[in-house]
């Protein structure tokens, strides 16, 4: 029986730039950061939520040949790959915080829906990020 999602990965175009964005702008914390040869295993995670990590993978060797890596980079940069969805306890406050930290690539400012308040942005490379404050979530947002 499976018990938990542990790691899900996204493609970024530069690991250092990704780490800066996801930690210093978005507010995640660094998880793993190990280097073995040319490969760097780098993850970030929601603070206080250490069991689920987001792998930040850079297209290229040894994962991909250069032609494949180029295709992936083009897809990332046109927003064609998958993204991330987070929960927050206060979408509007977070929106302001992100603006103060210099985030400009919002795809949607906070909007109220029957299920809560959500907003959208993109990381520096084109990956979509959605953030949701669930309406009935005061106790349930673990």
């Amino acid at each position: 029986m499976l018990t938990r999602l542990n790691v899900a990965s996204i493609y970024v175009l530069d690991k250092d730039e990704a780490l800066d964005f996801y930690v210093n702008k978005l507010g995640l914390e660094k998880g793993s950061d190990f280097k073995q040869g040319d490969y760097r295993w780098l993850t970030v995670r929601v603070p206080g939520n250490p069991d689920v990590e987001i792998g930040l993978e850079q297209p290229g060797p040894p994962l991909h040949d250069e032609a494949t890596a180029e295709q992936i980079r083009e897809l990332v940069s046109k927003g064609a790959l998958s993204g991330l969805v987070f929960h927050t306890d206060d979408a509007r406050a977070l929106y302001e915080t992100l603006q103060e930290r210099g985030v400009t690539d919002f795809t949607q400012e906070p909007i109220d829906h029957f299920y809560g308040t959500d907003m959208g942005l993109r990381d520096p490379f084109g990956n979509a990020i959605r953030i949701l404050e669930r309406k009935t979530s005061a106790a349930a947002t673990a």
Partner: protein
Amino acid sequence: MSHEIEDLNRRLLRARDAMDRAYAEPLDVRTVAAVAHISEAHFSRSFRAAFGETPHRYLQRRRVERSMFLLRETDRSVTDICFDVGFMSLGTFSRTFREIIGETPSSYRDAHGPMVAPNCVQMWAMRPRVAVGRATPADPAPQSSSFGEAGTAAAQ
């Protein structure tokens, strides 16, 4: 070399995001191209190469998607919804809706109720394809600097 493509794609995506965000406003090609820091002519061509349709058509499908959402989820009149989503005339809205969806806004409303899915999923997944047989084959690029709905120069 490939970094140039990534950089261009990223700027085109930023312009596309601007259309998704500000579809209700009277956008024109110049405004959206400026988001990408690209000249108007180069923008339309590059956008089509990256996303497979002109910026004009992309925006039409976004506006029609949002109108479908409002037709399903609200009691607002078709006329109100037309202006809510950025069309400047009911005639253009009805014609564009019929061309893309294959039926009128009213008949679409009659046949569809609310959809239970997060708004972002609806915006991703429900932006309509052009109904079979209804598309103008070439999806011609707009000749004026208007997207067709904004201002007086009614392109199409």
